[in-house]
């Protein structure tokens, strides 16, 4: 007859699992035991397990000379306790669980669907390809933004500086993963880092187009805030899901709570500073150059529509707001003579 002994850690995690195939087994700190427990509050020979062939059950016998053994939920172990599958017994600071082979196990869980994605993005090939793609897009962007002769060394340097973001991200999260779940998954985090950089660039470029086409600067500011917040949530969840082993429900909840509270805080920040987002006098878009699909209006139509601007101005007149003074504000060459300030006179 067989019995399985699980040695549990303080937080309930199984540290050791031993299958006993003989009729007796001893548990204690001494090395002659079948199951050895490294706990200084456990006696050299603390508990004995014995199969009663006549009665066809296992007995747990307390043979300690100090500290005793305690059946969880019952109290001190009787001299010979008849084992029921699933019994947990405390020896010193250590808890063991006794299981019979026919002990029922929980139904098999389905793998989380994201797991496939995690494995896919964890492939070094995919991570390298994503990184390369991101750097290429940025190199193209830098090239298209240049109005002067640019040396290739400069492009390489800027590319390397860009690489620092996904690499830094990957290093940080693999370290966290290594500590918490003993699994670094550097390639996966590198993929997530690249996607993050790429997606944020796509968002800002798309909104540039949005601002170019429409007279909706506030909407574009809000959209940018929401999209950036959404992106942050996605990448944080992607990183946390791997570094905290989300198969455990509690951790899954913590990770979700953390990311959504971050989203909440960023949206709250947006609401509090809503006025600052309302007018953006510096947003002067001219890119992309091929995108002008709206038909230009006549100057008369434009002049007629200018009253709307002043109407909007009147609507917000009472609100107190930041007034930006752009560079290039005029400076009179004449210095007014008279007013001489006397500080603290």
């Amino acid at each position, binding site marked *: 007859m067989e019995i399985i002994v699980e040695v549990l850690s303080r937080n309930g995690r199984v540290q050791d699992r031993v299958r006993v195939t003989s009729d007796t087994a001893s548990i204690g700190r001494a090395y002659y035991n079948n199951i050895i427990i490294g706990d200084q509050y456990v006696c050299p020979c603390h508990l004995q397990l014995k199969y009663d062939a006549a009665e066809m059950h296992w007995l747990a016998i307390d043979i300690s000379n100090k500290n005793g053994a305690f059946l969880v939920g019952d109290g001190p172990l009787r001299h010979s306790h008849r084992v029921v599958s699933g019994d947990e017994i405390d020896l010193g600071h250590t808890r063991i669980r006794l299981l019979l082979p026919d002990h029922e196990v929980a139904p098999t869980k389905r793998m989380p669907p994201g797991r496939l994605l995690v494995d896919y993005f964890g492939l070094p090939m995919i991570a390298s390809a994503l990184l390369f793609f991101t750097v290429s897009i940025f190199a193209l962007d830098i*090239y*298209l*933004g*240049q*109005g*002067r*002769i640019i040396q290739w060394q400069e492009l390489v340097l800027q590319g390397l500086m860009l690489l620092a973001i996904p690499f830094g991200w990957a290093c940080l999260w693999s370290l966290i993963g290594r500590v918490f779940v003993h699994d670094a998954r550097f390639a996966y985090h590198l993929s997530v880092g690249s996607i993050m950089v790429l997606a944020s660039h796509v968002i800002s470029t798309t909104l540039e187009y949005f601002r170019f086409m429409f*007279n909706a*600067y506030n909407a574009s500011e809000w959209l940018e805030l929401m999209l950036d917040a959404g992106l942050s949530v996605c990448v944080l969840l992607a990183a946390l899901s791997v570094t905290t082993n989300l198969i455990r429900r509690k951790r899954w909840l913590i990770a979700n709570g953390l990311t959504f509270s971050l989203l909440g805080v960023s949206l709250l920040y947006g609401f509090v500073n809503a006025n600052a987002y*309302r*007018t953006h*006098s*510096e947003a*002067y*878009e*001219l*890119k*992309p*150059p091929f995108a*002008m699909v*709206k*038909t*230009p*209006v*006549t*100057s*008369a139509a*434009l*002049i007629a*529509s*200018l*009253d709307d*601007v*002043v109407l909007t*101005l*009147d609507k*917000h*007149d009472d609100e107190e*707001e*930041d*007034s*930006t*003074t*752009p*560079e*290039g*504000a*005029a400076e*009179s*060459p*004449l*210095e*007014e*003579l*008279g*007013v*001489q*300030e*006397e500080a603290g*006179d």
Partner: protein
Amino acid sequence: MRIVVAFFSVFLALAGYAETTDDAKRLYHDYQDAIYQIRIIEKGSGNKAAIGSGFQISSDGLLVSNFHVVSEAVSKPDRYLIESLSSKGQRTHLEILTLDVVHDLVILKQAEAGSSWLNLQEGDLEKGARIFSLGNPHDLGMTVVEGTYNGIVDHSLYERVLISGSLNPGMSGGPSINRKGMVVGINVSTAGNQISFLVPVVHLRNLYQSVDGVVSSRVNWEALIEHQLVQNQQRVVDELLQSPWATTPLGDVQVPSEIADYVKCWGDTEAEDEQLYKVIHRTCNVDEAIYLAQYFSSGTFRLQYQWLETQSLNRFQFYSQMQDSFYLTEANNAYRENVTPYECKSEFVEAGGQPWKIRWCARRYKRFPLLLDVSFSLASLADNRKGMLMNFAMAGIDQANAKRVTERFLESIQWKSL
């Protein structure tokens, strides 16, 4: 004989010198009692917050100074009061009688009239005439500065007399007088290096004639200032729109530049070796503005143009450079305590046979709600190798006039070739 003539000339020159210095001495002696230091007193501390100069112009104790000397007391009467300090050290409380914000003048009423006053010069003074500016620079005591009268500045938006003489902070509001002791102008500003400006006395006479001598505590100065500013911008815009705007080429576009004789244009071309495109800048300024408060001026405008062209940039690169140079400019200084934030509108508009992107922005004056600062920028969008960026910024204009000027500007642009 030659030696005798030379000696005689030297003697004459010395005699002339002695005469002018004697003039200064005499004038100072005769008129020092008519000159006052104007002090803006902060009520909380009881100390002065700002100083200027002023002078008495009538027997009933009317004092003249610059509006910018007393502007704090006008906008915040609960915080500041105005007093005068005579040459004998006597302090007297002053009330504002009337003001002219456009010409930077204020007439104040003294509780007790002083014994001495100055008369105003009738008619014009000759260019080159010797004049004497009086005032209290840097609170150092009453001084007299000799200078030369150079007449009204050519092509100015707000009339100013140019003098060669050193005016200094604290002398604002003081008189400049001729050798007979008649006021020819009121000290107002300096551009350094012996270049200083006076308000012509004719504006003081006009203001003085409108005074009935009764101090009314119920006068709403803000409303009066707003009225004067509105009248002034109406005059400026009417004059500006009366004649067709002459345009000059910049790149391939005919643009309005020196649209009035007081508008001065400056140019520059930016074409460094490493830079793959060329930019020609033109800025047309009005060097004058109306002082409303510290860090708040108005009644002026500015035009800015940038012509960009390239042979080697592709269209993406070219529009990136265009975008980097496309921004809002302002014609004046103003901060949030005096103006609302800008409200803007973007649109695509057809002008001069070309599609443009226009961004039209306006902000309102908090204390003078009829007036706006308007700034609009245009960028040409049709050509991928050459383009124009334009900006017209106006300070202190009403809604209807802002639209009139925008319309005229759009009509004036002409693209030469497409």
